[in-house]
């Protein structure tokens, strides 16, 4: 299963944001840095996950997503739209 997505700020992709995945247990599970297109990728399992983005300049975004078995999900972390 894949959970991928993109971090944007003011409509532009953010490279170098740190995206954290918090698991159904409420604990940190993984963290990645966004690429030049603002993209990130995780390999979780079914359940409720929290995606947290830390952007340069101190911005902080967060979304909760539900993954069902076999699903791949694309998540937008857009500053001001979280």
């Amino acid at each position, binding site marked *: 299963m894949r*959970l991928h997505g993109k971090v944007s700020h003011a409509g532009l992709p953010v490279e*170098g944001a*740190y995206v954290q*995945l918090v*698991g*159904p*247990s409420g*604990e*940190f*599970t*993984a*963290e*990645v*840095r966004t690429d030049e297109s603002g993209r990130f*990728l*995780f*390999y*979780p*399992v079914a359940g409720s996950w929290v995606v947290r983005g*830390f*952007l*340069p*300049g*101190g911005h902080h975004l967060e979304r909760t997503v539900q993954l069902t078995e076999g699903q791949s999900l694309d998540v937008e972390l857009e500053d001001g739209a979280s």
Partner: protein
Amino acid sequence: MDYAKPEILISTDDVAARLGDPNLHVVEVDEDTAAYERGHVPSAVSLHWRDELQQANSRDIVDKEGFERLMGQRGITENDEIILYGGNNNWFAAYAYWYLKLYGHDRVRLMDGGRKKWELEGRPLTTDAPSPQPATYHAKDPDRSIRAFRDEVIGAVRQTPMVDVRSPEEYSGVLAAPAHLPQEAAQRKGHIPGAVNIPWSRAANDDGTFRSADELREIYLDKAGLDPQGEAIAYCRIGERSSHTWVVLHELLGLPHVKNYDGSWTEYGSLVGAPIEGGDQK
């Protein structure tokens, strides 16, 4: 309360203030080994955690002569001050810290918060690779008191406190590896019988810095009940997150009898006949 060894941490502010100091050896160690090429702290050299810190023909640390050669190539002597940093909240930098302690290096520190904090603070990065003057490094013999091996771990099941520092999802066997990695792993999921799950991340703030000594004491001693004078073994998947916890327990909280099991779950979970809990076993 302060850390047992507060001097092993250095802030990003203090590293920035000391850039250009010829006596300072900044070393980046990452899981994402392309990170260094993308941009690194000025003057930093890199160490590749697998290609350089592990042997090519066996899963082990490089031998003493190989380590001496490696450090010498980076222009580092056994008396130099080394500052380590890396991505993933310093997982692999902590591995390198533990590794340098195995070979008896005294003056080694971790940049608190690692690469993430440095980047998010907008501090300078360069793609210029330094050309260090080769040096002669004299290592000590490996300190076995801080490293646990397979047979010792099997013999210690339900005898010695073990801390599984992976996420609860890995501990319970829902995941086989951290969720940013494809889920390849050991033959079995689960954990070593009797091991308690204290994810490494409980020791870190959101910016990657270590929590305060009081907070760490509450997490590991008051709540988890680790004995400050007793033995303990930390493990994870491949030994890098457990190095982070080893730094917390051995260096920041001053527990003298803590070992890192760097074979960790990828070894233990593939051993024929080794007992496990959780995972596929119901």
